[in-house]
C-alpha cells in the first residue's frame, strides 16, 4: 500500500511529466486513502508542488510554454478529481476573482495560467474569457464584489483599455485589487494605470503565478503569517 509521501510524489511527477492519466490515477489514490491525506493535501503538496517544480524548469529554460501548458492540463486533470471533495472549511473563506483578456485581444494563454493559480488556491473564479468589452469587466466586478480583478493584454494595441477599466472600478470599489498582465506591460505602465499588481508575459505569469502558489502553500502550512 502506498504511503502519503508516495502518493504526493506520484501527483508531482504526473504534473511535471505532463501525464494527465497518471495525474487522475494519483488523485484517485488520494481519495482512496482518507486516513493518509486530505484532498487539500493532494492539491497543495502534490499538484501545486509539482507546478512549483515546473516553474523552476521554466526559469532555467528547460521547459518553455508548450511544456507548461501540458503540465497545466495534467494539473487540472488531477484538480478536477480532487476539488469536488474539498470542503469550504478546509480552505477557509472563499475569495473571488474576475479575470479576462481585454477587448481587441484574443490571446489568453497568460490569462489561463494566472487562472490556474487562483483555481489551485480554491478561489471563486469568474472567467470572462477573451476579447472582453471593457464595460463587462466593470459590470462583473461590481456584480460579484470580487476581491481581485485581473486583466490580460498580449499586445500593446489593447492594453490601453485597461486604464479605463481600472478608473471605473476604483471609483466605485476602491478596495478591489487590480492585477494586470501581458507582454507589452511594464511595471511603470501598470503603475501609471493605477494597478496593484503586474506580470509581464505568459512566461512571467508562470513564474509569478507559481511563486504565489508557493506562498500559498507556506501560508496554508502556517509557515508565514
Amino acid at each position, binding site marked *: 500500500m502506498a504511503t502519503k509521501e508516495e502518493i504526493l510524489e506520484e501527483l508531482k511527477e504526473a504534473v511535471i511529466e505532463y501525464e494527465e492519466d497518471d495525474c487522475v490515477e494519483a488523485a484517485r489514490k488520494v481519495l482512496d486513502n482518507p486516513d493518509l491525506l486530505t484532498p487539500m493535501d493532494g492539491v497543495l503538496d502534490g499538484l501545486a508542488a509539482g507546478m512549483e517544480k515546473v516553474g523552476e524548469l521554466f526559469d532555467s*529554460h528547460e521547459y*518553455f*510554454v*508548450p*511544456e507548461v*501548458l*501540458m503540465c497545466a*492540463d495534467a494539473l487540472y486533470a488531477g484538480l478536477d478529481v480532487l476539488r469536488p471533495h474539498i470542503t469550504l472549511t478546509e480552505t477557509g473563506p472563499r475569495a473571488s476573482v474576475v479575470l479576462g483578456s481585454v*477587448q*481587441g*485581444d*484574443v*490571446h*489568453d*494563454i497568460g490569462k*489561463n495560467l494566472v487562472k490556474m493559480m487562483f483555481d489551485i488556491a480554491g478561489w471563486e473564479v469568474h472567467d470572462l474569457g477573451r*476579447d472582453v*468589452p471593457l464595460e463587462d469587466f466593470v459590470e462583473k466586478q461590481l456584480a460579484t464584489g470580487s476581491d481581485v480583478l485581473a486583466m490580460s493584454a498580449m*499586445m*500593446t*494595441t*489593447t492594453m*490601453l*483599455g485597461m486604464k*479605463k477599466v481600472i478608473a471605473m472600478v476604483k471609483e466605485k470599489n476602491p478596495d478591489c485589487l487590480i492585477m494586470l498582465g501581458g*507582454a*507589452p506591460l*511594464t511595471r511603470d*505602465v501598470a503603475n*501609471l494605470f493605477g494597478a496593484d499588481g503586474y506580470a509581464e*508575459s*505568459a*512566461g512571467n505569469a508562470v513564474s509569478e503565478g507559481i511563486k504565489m502558489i508557493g506562498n500559498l502553500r507556506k501560508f496554508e502550512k502556517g509557515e508565514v503569517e
Partner: protein
Amino acid sequence: MTELTGKERVLKMFNKEAIDRMPCFSGQGAVTVQAIEKMGTQFAKIHNDAELMAGAALTSARMWNLDGLVVPFDMAAVAEAMGRGVSLYDGADGIIYPTVPNKWKDLDAIDIPADFMSKGRMPIIDDAFAILKKEAPDLAVGAWVLGPFTQAGQIMELDILLKGLKKKKDQIDAFLGRMTEITIDMCKHYEGLGVDFISVREMGSGTDLLSPRMWKTLIQPNLTRVFDAISIPSVNHICGSTDMIIEMMHECGADALSVDQKNNVVETRTKIGNDALILGNFDPYGTLTTLEDSSEVANVIKKCIDDGVDAVWPGCDIWPDVRKENMETFVATVREYGVKPSPAVKRI
C-alpha cells in the same frame, strides 16, 4: 549630387551599397493618428477600403518624412480570407486593431480555401499596393506577411498549436509545411505586385514561447524555405526574446534581421558579424507614445544606432497615438545621427 529618394535609399541599404544617410522606415505598421485625422477618417475604417488604407500609409509617410511604407495594418486579413471571420471594432472607443474571432480548435477541422487570396480583404490590400505604387514612386513600398508558425496561430487556437508541437509533432509538422507553402505563395504574389521589400513576421516564435531546440526543428526549416523563395529584399522579423536564436535566424537567409528591444544588438553583432543587416530595436509604445521629454526619444534612437543597427526600426507596429514631438525627434535623430556609416552599410 542629387539626393537619393527614399526608395533608392532603402533599396541601396538592402543591397549594402553606400548611401547618404540611414533610411527611416519600418516593415511594421507606421500609421499615426495625426495622419488619420488629417484625412478626416477613423482608425477602424482604414482596414476595409483600399483608398483609405493606402491613404493612411502614404499620409503618415509624407507627414513624418519616412523613406518607405507598408500596408496593411492588421494581422487578421489572411485568417479572415480563410473563413475565420474578423472583428473590426468599428463601434469601440479608441484604437483597436482587427482580430480573428473564430479560430479552428482542431487540426483535423482545418480547411483552407484554395482561393483565399481573392477572399475577404485580400483584394483590398492588392488595390492599396497598386495605389501606393502609383502615388508614391519615390518611396519604398513594403509588404509583410506572417511567418508560417505565427499565421498558424492566427487560424487555430494557439494553446492547441503549442501543445501539438509536443503531442502531435508529425501532424503539426505537416500543417506548418502547408502554412509555409501559403506564406511562399503570398510572398510571390506581393512580389508580382511590384513591392520593393517583404518582411516576414514570425513574431510568435521567440523564446518567450518556444525553446531554441523547437525553433531549430520547427521554425528554422520553414523560414529557410520562405526566404529561399523570395527574390526581392527580405526581412526576418521576430519580436520578443531572440538572443538565444539570433544565429539561427541569420542562417534562414533573409537579407536583413529585425528584432525588438529585448534583443541585445551589441551581442548580436558579435555573434553574426558586421556584414549582416540588422534593423531595430526600440520599443515603439514606450518611446513614441509615453516619453514626455523628446530628448529621451533622441537618446533611445541614438542607442539603437550606437549598438549597431543598420536602420532604426520599431520593434512592433508604431502605436498610432504617437506624440507629435516624439515622432519628429525619432525621424530627425535617424537623419542626423544616422549620417555616420552603420556596420553593414557605408556612406557616400
